[in-house]
């Protein structure tokens, strides 16, 4: 059943897990495969649920974005327009708009209901790799292979700020829940936190070694950062102190920028894809692998959680080209 706990419950990372068992939290998630969505003709690069939970958007190397119904997995529509492969797609907070980042060096803003491209954001000088809206959805942030992070205004489509953020391709960008901070991760091994208003770098998270960072994300309460690095590790940082709190291993991640997510609808899990074709689910507190979902036949590049239901969507690369929906029984 869907228990909606506030993210602040996790703030007590006191490792006594008895605190969490006072609510009816299942010991292990029991995800099972429900639907397979077939339709892309090339590798799927990213899947995202809409904030209102109704739709699932998937972007792919076949230059299309397909919208599926989240609850039944049925095909809804396709958005055409990009000239080259799409690396990432993101929803606005009101679930009416999408932004997509593509290898044709542009981002496109789409109106989902009409299926039209509202704006094309031009400015990057190399592949655009990742994109996101801020919570008020008046800004779009994008990271690119040209090593910069750009902030765009949705209304006009103009680039407001360019942060020369890293010295290697930027692999992930994310706003925190209030929209005041930006986190960016890059192949140069650095994870940087920026002030959204001024564009100043507030903090750089560095560990002992600096393997390329393939994915970063704020936790739903904005206090922690989840980073994935290309040495088969996921780390949870308390960024205000700059300390790594938890490390999650066991999966394989050395090549691709695989998405990882927090699952908060049921138990507190960390969900991530892996290069051994499985979806891994860890217990956030104990760091144990609680389940491995099998079904894909290629690298699982993206695994996302539904905002309200105990639903996981996962997508795989070109050997598989499908999206699978998993649900707890």
């Amino acid at each position: 059943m869907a228990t909606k706990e506030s993210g602040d419950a996790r703030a007590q990372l006191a490792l006594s897990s008895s605190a969490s068992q006072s609510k009816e939290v299942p010991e292990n998630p029991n995800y099972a495969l429900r639907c397979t969505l077939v339709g892309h003709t090339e590798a799927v690069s990213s899947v995202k649920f809409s904030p209102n939970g109704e739709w699932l958007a998937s972007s792919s190397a076949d230059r299309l974005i397909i919208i599926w119904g989240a609850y039944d997995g049925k095909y809804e529509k396709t958005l055409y327009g990009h000239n080259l492969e799409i690396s990432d797609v993101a929803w606005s907070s009101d679930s009416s708009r999408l932004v997509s980042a593509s290898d044709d060096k542009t981002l496109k803003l789409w109106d989902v209901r009409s299926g039209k491209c509202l704006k094309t954001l031009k400015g990057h000088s190399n592949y655009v790799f990742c994109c996101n809206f801020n919570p008020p959805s008046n800004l779009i942030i994008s990271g690119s292979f040209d090593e910069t992070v750009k902030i765009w205004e949705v209304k006009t489509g103009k680039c407001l700020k360019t942060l020369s953020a890293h010295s290697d391709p930027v692999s992930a960008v994310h706003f925190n829940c209030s929209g005041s901070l930006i986190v960016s991760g890059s192949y140069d091994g650095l994870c940087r936190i920026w002030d959204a208003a001024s564009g100043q770098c507030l903090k750089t998270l560095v560990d002992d070694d600096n393997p390329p960072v393939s994915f970063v994300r704020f936790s739903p309460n904005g206090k922690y950062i989840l980073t994935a690095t290309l040495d088969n590790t996921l780390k949870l940082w308390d960024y205000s102190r700059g300390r790594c709190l938890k490390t999650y291993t066991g999966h394989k991640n050395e090549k691709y920028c695989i998405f990882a997510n927090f699952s908060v609808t049921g138990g507190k899990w960390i969900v991530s894809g892996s290069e051994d074709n499985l979806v891994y689910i860890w217990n956030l507190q104990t760091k144990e692998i609680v389940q491995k979902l099998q079904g894909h036949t290629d690298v699982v590049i993206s695994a996302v959680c539904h905002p309200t239901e105990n639903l996981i969507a996962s997508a795989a690369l070109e050997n598989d080209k499908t999206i699978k929906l998993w649900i707890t029984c």
Partner: protein
Amino acid sequence: MEGDGSDPEPPDAGEDSKSENGENAPIYCICRKPDINCFMIGCDNCNEWFHGDCIRITEKMAKAIREWYCRECREKDPKLEIRYRHKKSRERDGNERDGSEPRDEGGGRKRPVPDPDLQRRAGSGTGVGAMLARGSASPHKSSPQPLVATPSQHHQQQQQIKRSARMCGECEACRRTEDCGHCDFCRDMKKFGGPNKIRQKCRLRQCQLRARESYKYFPSSLSPVTPSESLPRPRRPLPTQQQPQPSQKLGRIREDEGAVASSAVKEPPEATATPEPLSDEDLPLDPDLYQDFCAGAFDDHGLPWMSDTEESPFLDPALRKRAVKVKHVKRREKKSEKKKEERYKRHRQKQKHKDKWKHPERADAKDPASLPQCLGPGCVRPAQPNSKYCSDDCGMKLAANRIYEILPQRIQQWQQSPCIAEEHGKKLLERIRREQQSARTRLQEMERRFHELEAIILRAKQQAVREDEESNEGDSDDTDLQIFCVSCGHPINPRVALRHMERCYAKYESQTSFGSMYPTRIEGATRLFCDVYNPQSKTYCKRLQVLCPEHSRDPKVPADEVCGCPLVRDVFELTGDFCRLPKRQCNRHYCWEKLRRAEVDLERVRVWYKLDELFEQERNVRTAMTNRAGLLALMLHQTIQHDPLTTDLRSSADR
């Protein structure tokens, strides 16, 4: 060999090449001293080192020298002459020497990388002389230059290849000690006769693990576009490891490229036969052989581009070789053009991308007698070039067959489970319909009020005037207070304030326009908008007709017209009485009819807006519902339900 003037070890010194400046120190120069801490110049013939002081050559002079031979050698062999550099190259060298390290790109936060070349050269222990000898024997233009040495450096260098931010020290590229001399980066180097504008390490020496993506791939020999730019790859992987099973990816190649594909499949296994590691001896000097070698060498390392289908036509060595030769020539010319058109790169890139796509087709045109069979049902004729079918008919037949075969099961699949989006749509429509109903009732209400108002106004006009009606205003009011008009700012008497401000406002407002391009066309609405056409701005005035100061003037009030405003007690309660003052005199109820009419009209306009909005929403929902599960949608996509019982993934079915 310009910047590499670090290794002073002459192999002919006769002593151990790596000894310290101690007992068994090698001796140099005409003075036969082991001192190496000063400026030295090496003879390009006998490879002996001479102190600059001893032979009266300063460092500055040496900069101008390209080939230097000692006096002995010159005397022995009259053919040897000291060659000087061209003036321009001298200046360039001078600048270079300061920044001879390969420049690392990136933001200001990047830490500087020490020159790996320096260290590696010493580490491998190959003498300078040996390299000079090879250099002179090579077929290309790089002429050996006297090495101006800082001899002390070599003592500090280690055997191990140093790791740095851009070098792992362990891969093939890091282990290489010599520049290939053929890649674009090498050809830019001073020592190979280049202008030294790019300033990067040899392509074959770019670390496979840590170097920048765009520097790694073997250059110009394959295409003018740097291959990493043309890489279409989702969530680009870091090419740290070899790509497994390149043949797998070839399964997606179009049938047209059948011939190319088969040869391409053969190629990778062949390539693995080439030996690793690449030592200096393996470097073939023949340029043709070298192209092949490099092409083969790269198959080993499994660069990511290889697995991509768009590149697969290039896997054909024959093709690539052809391509290489052509492009080498072209590249030099194109390079200067490119720099001029940096700003218009987008167009060029697009063009190049298109060209790249054209290549496979062009290749096939040259490929005769290997046209595949038409895919039409029961057809054995060969397909047209660039097509899968021999004729349109075959294509249509196949398409029809496909639809007959696949569509029924897809429709069944679709209907197996209820479409939740459809249900939502229906609920939305319900809601919209209800709202439309309520809006229409409100509209009727408005209309009623409208008529009522008109009736009141009419009745009021029929009242008789009573001149001597006591006016409520007058002496009781304080006439000392001065109110300032909001529009013009002048002080006015509060008694006439209302009248003045209305007039004033109308005056200013009439000078501005407020309109839209479209005339109002609403059925069943009497007067709403002014709709006067302004030919200058081509717009229709969109103010309320009763209020518009621009296009309607207040009619002149006849002297005997009565005010007629319904009087109220305590603001809301109608007394049933009317104001009997003549309109001209009444200051309290100035233009009350206009204002009341405007109020009603505004409400009506609002309701019409709401109806319009609802209509728009309805249209959207209906379009989405009709477009769902169309033919293309069903044919191109499918949703496989693994559990036919739970097709609704929501935890609580009613939302």
